[in-house]
């Protein structure tokens, strides 16, 4: 099953998800050596704890600029916890604590004197369930721009963000309609438009397609591919095919068990997506990507 990332190429017929996959695969350029890539995050020895119990232990990995990095692994391996550390979203959880360093462009964002609001201003996030504001479609994108002081050429910015999120054509005639009137897939693309409108540096995506149908999913995958020249994406997914389709780099997290039923997530392997799916070096990665995970 090593050919997981290369779906059948003899598939004929109308444009299908399979064709999309093939197209995305073909678009992927081969990665330059890792030393030559610009590092945007340098995570070192990161432990994340809820109420003193570790959820993720000792994660060390770099995230590279203008690539899509996928975090895969079984449920409960701490994927979401990890990605939420990258923009200090876990600060909102009272019992949360962490040790280790996360350097963002060289600056440790876990430091006490770093303002989490400024961190999130640069590192946006799209969540598992679409969470548009109960405002109009236009205001969902424009509100953040206004609050953050990007008030000039507001209409233009909104249109640009909606176009980038592949939603403009579907909503341009009803921008004043409530965002809640959109379908789930459209809502999620609106949330992506809202996140990229404020021009972040990195966009974190926490299982952005898990609540969506395959067509909406492929739209989102396509837009990540189209936008990665401008942004850096980190995507958590439980869908291995999705990781294989969109990611340049893939990190595999797994669950480790300790004494007295203690369990925590840890990073097992972090490599180019191609290597993870075709030639993993760890047995656990191989079991997982080939579906033999127990």
């Amino acid at each position: 099953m090593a050919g997981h990332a290369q779906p059948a190429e003899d598939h004929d017929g109308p444009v299908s998800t399979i064709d999309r996959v093939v197209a995305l695969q073909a678009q992927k350029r081969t990665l330059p050596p890792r030393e030559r890539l610009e590092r945007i995050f340098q995570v070192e020895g990161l432990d994340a704890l809820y109420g003193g119990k570790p959820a993720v232990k000792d994660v060390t990995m770099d995230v590279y600029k203008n690539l899509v990095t996928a975090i895969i692994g079984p449920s409960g391996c701490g994927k979401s916890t990890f990605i939420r550390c990258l923009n200090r979203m876990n600060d909102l959880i009272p019992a949360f604590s962490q040790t280790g360093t996360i350097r963002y462009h060289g600056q440790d964002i876990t430091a006490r004197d770093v303002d989490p609001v400024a961190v999130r201003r640069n590192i946006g996030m799209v969540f598992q369930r679409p969470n548009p504001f109960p405002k109009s479609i236009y205001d969902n994108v424009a509100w953040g721009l206004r609050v953050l002081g990007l008030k000039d050429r507001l209409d233009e910015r909104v249109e640009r963000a909606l176009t980038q999120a592949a939603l403009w054509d579907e909503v341009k005639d009803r921008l004043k309609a409530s965002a809640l009137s959109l379908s789930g897939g459209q809502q999620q693309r609106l949330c992506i438009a809202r996140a990229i409108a404020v021009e972040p540096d990195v966009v974190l995506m926490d299982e952005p397609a898990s609540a969506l149908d395959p067509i909406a999913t492929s739209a989102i995958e396509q837009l990540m591919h189209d936008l990665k020249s401008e942004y850096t994406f980190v995507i958590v997914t439980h869908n291995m095919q999705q990781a294989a389709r969109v990611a340049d780099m893939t990190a595999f997290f797994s669950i480790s068990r300790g004494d007295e039923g203690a369990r925590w997530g840890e990073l097992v392997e972090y490599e180019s997506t191609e290597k993870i799916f075709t030639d993993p070096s760890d047995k656990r990665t191989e079991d997982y990507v080939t579906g033999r995970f127990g």
Partner: protein
Amino acid sequence: MSTHNLTKAALRAEGLPRRRAMNRLMELVAWLAAALAIGILVVMVWSVARRGAGALNLDLITKTPVQFNFGNAPSGLSNAFAGTLVIVGLATAMALPVGILVAIYLNEFARPWIRSSVSLALDVLNGVPAIVIGIFVFGLFVVGHGQSGYAGAFALACLMLPLVARSTLEVLALVPASLREASLALGVPRWRTTLSIVLPQTLGGIVTGTVLAVARVAGETAPLLFTTSIVGTQLHWDPHHALQTVPVAIFELSESANPADHAQAWAAALVLLLFILCTNLTARWLATRSRRKITTAR
């Protein structure tokens, strides 16, 4: 355990008729209890209406009281209605901002143990008898200064505060965390998120809670007896002085020897009752509306 023999004799042997009778009995008891609750309300409203309707006319709210009124001089309680309006209005102005801020602090910013202990304190405050609050405010403001509308309003505000804070807290908890996260993930500060994203979702609930609190305190007598009850018969609106209020007026008129005063007390009681009924209905209507709004926002 089940049997396939469905003849009456077999079912009787299983005790089915007895269980069926018990079921009927319990249903009847529950129905009677519900009827009793509604019955008390109906009887009360009806008896107040029957005795008060006769004296209910426009004079009641436009004319000031006439003392020792044994003739047919037009007499009313305009001073009491004006006083209640001023005092309840002031009390709302005091309790509303504090109650909302307390709720926002507890739900959005406080650590869990602070949240639970302050919530408990609010519940205790809610349970303090109104007369105790009256005495407290009497000792605080009235001794050495004399009675005033402000003192009465402060006493009512003490009663309103836990009601407003509690109801605001409830609607704040209904706002999905995902909305806050959406705003915070954009790099919007927490105060701005609370003000622009969370609060607008809860406006309906806050209004509902406030209307209910107003309805509750508008009929309070005990705290006002100590703080704003020594009054003349003139109509005035200045809360620096003691103001007459509807509940206190009812209390005083009912002690009078004059039957005309009794009729007026009943009429005032009827007006108060109708006011509370209307505010409660408004609150219910607002509550269903706002709940629908919040749940569709999910």
